């Protein structure tokens, strides 16, 4: 005999969210299974450190479990989860007080070595950007968010978001071309 939970992998996400809001742990587990890759991917781009990224992603899902009852619209789940992820990352960054010097490039070597090819290039180059610039770039290019949505989620002024994305895009292009020419050399601004 089949249990209701056996059908969860086939259920639409909105239905699972509604069930998770009532405290259904199996529905929550299925939601984590579906969303873990995107949230961990986002965190990896933001942190450039796989272990830290997974720790923060874990915190995101834990917070999701604690506060999913407050989510009124099941359709807004994706955006809500992304907002949660960004706020967890910002909390982590604020602890480090790393939001200072927002527009400056930081000289840092790439630390993520568990992927290869394009992924590794991108990880290494993203790691050289300042935290707020990296956040705006990742939300724009990886998550496909508009400038307005990034403003809402990060609480940065629209002008700052635009400036971060423009400047960050140019820096990324320059750094990527330099990196492809000589990947062993350390990237400097």
């Amino acid at each position, binding site marked *: 005999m089949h249990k209701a939970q056996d059908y969860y992998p086939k259920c639409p996400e909105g239905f699972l969210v509604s069930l998770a809001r009532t405290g259904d742990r199996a529905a929550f587990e299925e939601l984590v*299974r579906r969303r873990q890759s995107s949230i961990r991917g986002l965190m990896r781009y933001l942190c450039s450190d796989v272990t830290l990224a997974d720790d923060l992603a*874990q915190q995101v899902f834990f917070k999701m479990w604690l506060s999913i009852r407050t989510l009124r619209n099941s359709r807004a789940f994706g955006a809500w989860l992304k907002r949660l992820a960004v706020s967890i990352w910002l909390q982590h960054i604020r602890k480090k007080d790393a939001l200072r010097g927002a527009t400056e490039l930081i000289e840092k070597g790439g630390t993520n070595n568990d992927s290869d090819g394009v992924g590794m290039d*991108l990880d290494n180059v993203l790691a050289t950007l300042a935290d707020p610039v990296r956040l705006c770039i990742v939300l724009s*290019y990886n998550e496909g968010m508009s400038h307005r949505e990034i403003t809402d989620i990060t609480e940065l002024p629209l002008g700052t978001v635009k400036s971060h994305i423009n400047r960050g895009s140019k820096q990324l292009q320059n750094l990527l071309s330099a990196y492809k020419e000589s990947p062993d050399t350390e990237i400097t601004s």
Partner: protein
Amino acid sequence: MTDDRDPRLQALFADARAELDGEEFVTRVIAKTRKPKQFVIAGLATIALIMAAAAWLFTLPILGISQVVATALTTTLIDLGEGWLAWVLLPVNNIASVLALCIKALRMIHQKVRGASYLG
């Protein structure tokens, strides 16, 4: 609103996207969500235990005190005998009603004084 995105960077991000295997991660997350529940249960059990111990220790003294207080508050102020007047005035002819009136008066005075200070 259309936001200008560099097509080459967009393609680069799209190429770099990879599905991460997450069974171990999911297990860790689920295990983490179980821990607080255990803490809550342990906390509630501790509180219940403390309350039971307190009830066992303090029930008799609390009962004694409340009996003394109840007797004192219901003491009549003026002895009106057993007639109908005594029954009619019973709700106000005791220490409790005098105390209630005093508290009411003090609150009114306090409110007046506060109101006056705001005006000043």
